[in-house]
């Protein structure tokens, strides 16, 4: 049977401790400054292309929509944004939508029909 490497063992437990420390620090920051908390959102279009946006949780989605439309050079009113199959509207915030870091929003073009 293989002997446990004492060096490896100790280093791994140190890493585990470090990870715990970092997690605690992070929690503390969140608790003291909830307003400044920002997350990264991924906006994915129908071709699969992703655009990243860093936003504060209190920012209205309107800003993300306008910025995305500006980048793509399209009218914001012709875009539709979805989260898990539900439309999201411009007055909602990341916090209201319970968005988390790295969450994905889908974007689609307006559809029309008549003839």
């Amino acid at each position, binding site marked *: 049977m293989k002997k446990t490497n004492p060096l490896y063992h100790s280093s791994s437990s140190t890493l585990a401790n470090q990870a715990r420390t970092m997690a605690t620090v992070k929690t503390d920051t969140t608790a003291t400054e909830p307003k400044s908390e920002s997350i990264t959102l991924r906006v*994915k*279009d*129908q*071709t*699969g292309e992703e655009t990243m946006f860093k936003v504060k949780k209190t920012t209205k989605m309107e800003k993300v929509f306008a910025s995305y439309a500006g980048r793509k050079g399209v009218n*914001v*009113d012709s875009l*539709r944004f*979805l989260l*898990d*199959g*539900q*439309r999201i*509207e*411009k007055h909602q915030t990341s916090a209201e939508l319970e968005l988390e870091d790295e969450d994905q929003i*889908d974007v*689609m*073009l*307006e*559809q*029309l*029909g*008549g*003839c």
Partner: protein
Amino acid sequence: MSAEEVLFYYQDEAQMTRGDLHLFKAPAWLNDRCINFYFRVLEHEEFAGRPDLLFLDPVVVSCMLIQCTDEEDLKELAGGLRLDTRSIVFIPINDAEEFFSGCTHWSLLVFCTGGKGEGKSGSFFHFDSSCGRNESAAMKTAAQFWRMFTILEGRDVIAGRQCPRVDAINDCPQQENGYDCGMYLLGMTKYVAHLFVTQGSGVATRRGSVAKEGENDEGSGTCSVAGGKGSRLDTTGLGAHVSSDAMGELRRRIAQKIEQLAGRVSP
């Protein structure tokens, strides 16, 4: 006043802008927000007591088609739509099959989920007001919808079962102009939902087996969307209820409703 000005949010689920309101004036074409608005009205007002009827937002349909690439995506979407609690699903079809391709035509695909367990099946019916122009889009959508449906229900029940045939409704009312297909989609949805609720009668019958493949061959154009033996949903009256004049009237009624809602909400 800007066309982009938001008039109101209906039930927090459908945004209406001034521009959308103008689309209800002929000969304008309807967009996905117009369709979604009326679908939400059907859900929350006309068929409020029937949560087993699902009126799909066109944006969700295109999300399902284009964005849901793997089974995990489809499973999540199916869960969000509570597909396991539905008995009939109204699916708006648009011919915009790809991100940048143009779109011109709306039609209606109806899916009846059938009962639970062994007799489980599903049936698709396509109502197209322009001689089947959306046939390929409807078939593509049906295939993807069926994939989502079978993933949710568990492969053990309907494993390997092929997507049911999409039955085109032969005597579907035809539009007489180049702008009313969106209205026909709305009018037919309301009428078929009404038939399903009234003719489909009790839950027990509706949970029974739904029209099987080929069952509606005789008497072509008749769609049996209600389940159970002897309980047929006859759509032959569709033409009388969904006509050019009737759709003109429905346009006026919906525009009036939007104006009322806008007046109530805006300062």
